[in-house]
């Protein structure tokens, strides 16, 4: 059974590992045989390695699965027990690509009209004040100015036009 050990320098919740910004660097490739019953989800193997392990990610070709290394135990000189847990995101990345999801937030798409409750606001407001002038209203004067309008309403038939 071939096991490839990598050093992964990226985000654990990145689906597809090994891109430009999260390189997956191969450290060592080992061949071996399982000597005891092993779960596919949580794998424990014992390997011989002549220095302190400098890897953190594993691919087991026979299982077609990628794993995060969750624990490393020194058994004796140059013998290490490696405990792994499956990385379902990378292992099943093609299944994920074919999946539908309701995406609430995204980095590369944005609907600006949706209320964003993670936005940070400073206290207070910026106030814009704009005046719209008009030719209709005058200031209300306690004592009418000479040119202020006064109008009189009269009763029926007592005020008619001279040309009628």
């Amino acid at each position, binding site marked *: 059974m071939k096991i490839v050990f990598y050093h992964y320098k990226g985000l654990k919740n990145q689906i597809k590992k090994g891109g430009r910004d999260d390189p997956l660097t191969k450290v060592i490739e080992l061949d071996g045989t399982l000597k005891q019953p092993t779960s596919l989800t949580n794998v424990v193997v014992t390997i011989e390695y002549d220095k302190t392990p400098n890897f953190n990610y594993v691919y087991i070709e026979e299982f077609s699965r990628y794993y995060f290394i969750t624990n490393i135990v020194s058994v004796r000189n140059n013998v290490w027990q490696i405990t792994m847990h499956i990385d*379902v995101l990378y292992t099943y990345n093609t299944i994920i690509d*074919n999946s539908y999801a309701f995406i609430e937030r*995204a980095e590369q*798409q944005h609907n600006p009209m949706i209320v964003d409750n993670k*936005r940070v606001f400073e206290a207070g407001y910026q106030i814009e004040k704009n005046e719209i002038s008009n030719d209709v209203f005058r200031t*209300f004067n306690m004592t009418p100015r000479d040119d202020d309008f006064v109008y009189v309403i009269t009763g029926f038939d007592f005020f008619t036009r001279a040309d009628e």
Partner: protein
Amino acid sequence: MWIDFRNYISNIFYKNTHFNGMMLTNKRGLYNIVKDFESIFSNFTDYSSEMTSIYYCPIKSIKVSETSQYLNNSRGDWKDIKVKGIEADSTIQHLGQYFVSPRFNNFADYKGYTHIKIYLPYMGYVNVDPNECMGKYLQFFVAFDFATGKGIHLIGTSSNYIDNQHEPYIVDDCFGDVRIISTYEFDFAMEIPVGTSNIGDIKRNAVLGAIKTVATAAVSAATMGIPAAVVATTSSVTSSFEVQERSPDKGSRLKTTSAGTETQTTETTKTTNNPKSFSKTALEAFNSSIGVLNMSAPNGNTDRVNDASLLWSMPTNIIVEIYRPKMMNYSKNEISLLGQPVGVANPISFMSGFMVASSVKIPDISSSSSITLEELEELEMLLTSPNGFYRYRVEEDDDFTNLKSFELYYYKNHYDWVSQYKFYYPHEYMTWKDFINSPYNVGNMFAYEVGDDYVRLNIKDDYGDYYYLENNVNSLVDINSKVYNYNHPDYGYGFY
């Protein structure tokens, strides 16, 4: 279907007000009118019953008839009067307009975040829903009913600027143009007591202190049940938006129906010889004006005005105040950590970068994969985790290699709100790779699908989402614009 504005206003008043004698004059003219009445009528009762009401009305633009008038009595005596008749007993005027421009171009421009207060002359402050007017013109109209001294401020919205070529007509919603969103009733004239006074009072009031008499009564009304909310306008102006709003019984929003327009505005009733009934409204308007003056005061604590003697300083202009929230902008790092709201149901392969999904539907994989139920459940849990996940295209380098040699020449939309047209102008040159790494690729403008000869872009502020990169042309063309494609000599492709 056009609705004649004037008929519309008549409907608001719910009645016809056809007084055949409505004379416009000024302070001195009123004295002469009283003298004319005195000369043609034999006693006080005769003319005081016919001189129904006298209003002081500090409104500038009232249309008058130039025809000379005469007065007669039942005995056939007549007398010329040197006054002008008011041409119509009601009138409607367009006071102005104001474009409410969005600042953030996102949810923060709307209700709950942005607040809009408007000061209306003789009326006071009112709140306007930003959802109704953001990105539109606020249109201000005023209607006067001279028979009652009542006016109505009408606030509407329109997509277009109203100029001399466009009458201020309102139309039904579906026809665009001006849509009335609220109406507010106010008093624009103060009645000078006639019936309860003798002729000496009328003449003295006409020349000296007519309004002062009424205004004094108005101040007295302050202790007679002025709503607390109105009085509160003289205090803090930023503590609450609602408290400064005019008492709701003095005007209400207009409701529109498919059958036409109906109003909830209270029916105007004529007030005769009862100063208190209108002076209360005058005081409300005055108190609101004090609120305006307070805001202008250099030191609000000490320079604040709170005395009724400043009634004359009441602003006559409309004042639009927009309270914009102080929203922090996301940095690129924050966006990569938090994402921004998108709200779409997509195949995950359509997405890239960081994302948070609330539900996921994984296709039936039982026949084609050795995935266990435990693994499947863990996969669902990770994909719907509130911490989100990342999907970067590891093959991006290859995708970009083919386009790397292109110079991306895109057009930034500059929408002219005044005209109906929009066009794009070349913003700047950049290579495709530069663009991917540029700030335009985050928030403002980003590409989310790349093909051999096209790119789908989402451009903020823009209506068109889909662009494609024309091979060997180095320009982005709005697919929608293909219908109206116009090759501008200076600006290249775009709307025009």
